[in-house]
């Protein structure tokens, strides 16, 4: 039953996303191209003799492509949740969500699925394949471990989106919430080694941004360290906290004039 509802809502989201065909195609292509071209900055850095200590150019590109793929999946599923919630709260139309006999979060997530963000994932995947051809992987266990951490990164990313969406109930109309979320997660776009030890611990085990890119890449390319897997715990906690705080904030919804 719930799966049927899920399918119906996702179908509606697809129909809505493709209602304006040119916009949909352009968004998808631009997202794809901009993500295939994102390595330019890294390539320029390495072409000028600079580097991230201990990381070759192809390794950094692999890391950044994992970050991009992780972000792509989280964006497809949850990036619109923030905007949709913000619009509903500011416009006083959240009651139309609360009238549905399903969880408001479930409804918002499924009906705001953003297929055009697939470009972010596909772009990252293309760069990852090219990078791995040039670097190779640390072995089957490294690949499996990286996959597990990659899933953790998606969960953490989703948690960050949910927390920001929850804040939009009280911080009404703040269009910078998305940037705040991006700024936090962007720590995962670089090797942990470039940060101080303290910051490295924070982004790995407290606010698990490193799980979105750097830790899975580290395991995929340089082998698994059991300690890294502890980072899965805060990923789960961020996600669960995101769901809890979102549902909690709904009580704060006050609508606007009728």
């Amino acid at each position, binding site marked *: 039953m719930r799966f049927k*509802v899920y399918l119906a*809502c996702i*179908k509606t989201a697809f129909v809505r996303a493709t209602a304006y065909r040119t916009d949909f195609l352009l968004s998808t292509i631009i997202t794809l191209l901009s993500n295939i071209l994102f390595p330019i900055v890294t390539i320029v850095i390495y072409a000028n003799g600079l580097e991230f200590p201990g990381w070759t150019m192809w390794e950094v590109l692999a890391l950044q492509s994992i970050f991009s793929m992780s972000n792509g999946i989280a964006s497809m599923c949850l990036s619109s949740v923030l905007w949709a919630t913000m619009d509903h709260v500011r416009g006083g139309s959240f009651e139309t969500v*609360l*009238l549905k006999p399903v969880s408001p979060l479930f409804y918002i997530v499924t009906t705001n699925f953003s297929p055009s963000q697939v470009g972010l994932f596909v772009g990252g995947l293309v760069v990852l394949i090219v990078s791995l051809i040039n670097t190779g992987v640390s072995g089957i266990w490294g690949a499996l471990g990286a996959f597990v951490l990659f899933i953790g990164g998606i969960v953490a990313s989703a948690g960050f989106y949910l927390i920001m969406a929850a804040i939009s109930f009280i911080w009404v109309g703040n269009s910078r919430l998305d940037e705040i979320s991006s700024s936090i997660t962007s720590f995962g776009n670089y090797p942990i080694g470039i940060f101080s030890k303290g910051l490295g611990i924070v982004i790995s085990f407290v606010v698990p941004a490193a799980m979105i890119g750097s830790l899975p890449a580290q395991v995929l390319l340089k082998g698994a360290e059991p300690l890294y897997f502890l980072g899965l715990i805060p990923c789960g906690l961020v996600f669960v906290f995101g769901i809890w705080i979102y549902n909690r904030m709904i009580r704060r*919804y006050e609508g606007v004039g*009728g």
Partner: protein
Amino acid sequence: MGIINVKNLRKIYTTYKRSEKGFFASFFKRKKIEVRAVDGIDFEIEKGTIVGMLGPNGAGKSTTIKMLCGALFPTEGEIEIMGYSPAKDRAKYVKRIGAVFGQKSQLIFDIPPADSFAMNKAIYGIPDDVYEARLREMVELFGIKDVIHKPTRVLSLGERMKCEIVMAMLHDPEVVFLDEPTIGLDVIAKATIRDTIKKMNQKGVTFILTTHDLGDVEELAERVIVINHGKKIFDDSLKKLKLLLGNKKIVDVSLAVPFEGDSLDGMSVNKNDDGTKISVELDLDKTEVKEFLTVLGQATDFTDIEIRELPMEEIITRLYTE
């Protein structure tokens, strides 16, 4: 015990007031104010009735409806509808109600209403055959067979509102809340929507509607609740509301010879510019129609006469300002 039971319902908001010193001062310091949107309302509604909820802008009608729908948590008080507490039992409760917010669409703007209906079918778990039959019935009732396949954004207000009502009714709700369902509609669209509400009501559906259109109330509601400043100021039948200002009628008279003076047997007279048309507010508790006609015949040479009810607008205006 009614199907809807409301006791001492309150909703208090905290909001901010801009400083009178202007924008700059407000940016640094804003004054917090408490708004009592709904302030201690009680009522009970029996199954199968249509209740009109009236009140001036900002009176608390929409806030009350939103609390009844489970969309807002009351600050205080109790709501019990069909055995549910709307905010606490929201998911189970909303499955059995329908709601239309005239100014807030439940349809998805970019896609045709048919797609929104199909999504609701899955969400409410309506069986295929029941859905098909109900959709066909409602589409025919409203005459919107082609409309439901056009994107919602291109629909006229009337077409959209009909689709909103279909969306709210597809799952066969037992209680329906309509918040200004005829706002901005032409007379034909209003009539169609009123007819549909009557037909649904004959099947036992309970309706609560808020409106500024007194025509909706006169045509549909058996009972009227008037809210002002968050408080209930009237709750009785439409007939009683009409008698609220006394047992009065308006008598419009056309005259062959212009009327001179300002009163007739102590009753104040309104007249047009040339004095050939006058109207008198007749208090039937003091003067019977027969008596008035005798006085009128003696004082004037009238050619036509019309006796009508006191306009609802006037009753409501006086009620709001009292």
